[in-house]
């Protein structure tokens, strides 16, 4: 056993982690046993991947509708191209905005280039929250729309098992 994983071991570890982290007292020791490596080597590799951004954290994916978060709004705005970075950062930092991305316009079908997700329990509350947010940020005049979801057909979290993978957006 060495203190670092060789390449095949690292690949095998990644594959094991794609299935999730085993729910045992010492998960990295359990994984190390599968690889024929040491617990410290596995933990060190996991830390490196975490720091390097291969994954964002070891955490959970929630079925947010089951937890009462039924009002899921996609706020889309038509922002002048020159201002989109500044306004994107501004809205992304605002409380209640869970995700904020720039996406392309597809004229004439689609004019909006900035997307924010806001989740709440009640639709009216989310509507008020977003109008207040835009007013506070001085953005109410920008053309925008709120697209509430009314049905979830498929929601599966963060699975990635190449080559036939599933992902979380």
């Amino acid at each position: 056993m060495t203190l670092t994983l060789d390449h095949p071991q690292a690949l095998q570890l990644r594959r094991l982690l794609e299935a999730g982290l085993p729910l045992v007292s010492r998960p990295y020791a359990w994984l190390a046993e599968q690889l024929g490596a040491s617990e410290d080597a596995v933990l060190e590799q996991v830390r490196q991947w975490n720091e390097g951004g291969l994954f964002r954290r070891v955490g959970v994916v929630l079925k947010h509708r089951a937890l009462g978060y039924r009002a899921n709004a996609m706020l889309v705005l038509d922002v002048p191209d020159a201002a989109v970075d500044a306004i994107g950062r501004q809205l992304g930092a605002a409380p209640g905005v869970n995700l904020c991305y720039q996406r392309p316009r597809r004229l004439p079908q689609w004019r909006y280039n900035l997307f924010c997700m806001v989740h709440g329990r009640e639709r009216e509350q989310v509507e008020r929250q977003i109008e207040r947010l835009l007013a506070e940020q001085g953005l109410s005049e920008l053309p925008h729309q709120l697209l509430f979801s009314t049905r979830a057909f498929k929601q599966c979290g963060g699975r990635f098992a190449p080559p036939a993978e599933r992902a979380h957006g």
Partner: protein
Amino acid sequence: MDELDRQLINRLQHGLPLVRQPWEALAEELGSNSATLRARVQALLDDGTLTRFGPMFDIERLGGAFTLAALSVPEERFDEVAAVLEAMPEVAHNYRREHAWNMWFVLGCATPEGIAETIARIEAETGLAVLNLPKEETYHVGLHFAV
């Protein structure tokens, strides 16, 4: 769901500590014990409150690609088209939204070419044009749900 479940879910959304005995560390924080916490996570996975526990991979760092896409589906065809997407492993989630573009879904593929191929397949199978909106810039990702 009781107070301990709520604390545990809120805490785990920020990530499990990367230490040898993460459950011991968490038990100390939450004033519980590690075996109880593991049993709670297992129960929450079993009843569907949690859909995954483990590292949240960044698919793009693995060479994969994501996109957000939409379809404008005639009302009478809605369930039929939803079923087409449901059957495709590349479709990560799919929501009906109140808009002329009424079906919004995320595609995740192992390669960027896979996205184009999947969109072409959806267009061929449904006869509908896909609005493809890949992200160009990320300003914020912080999907936390207080429970």
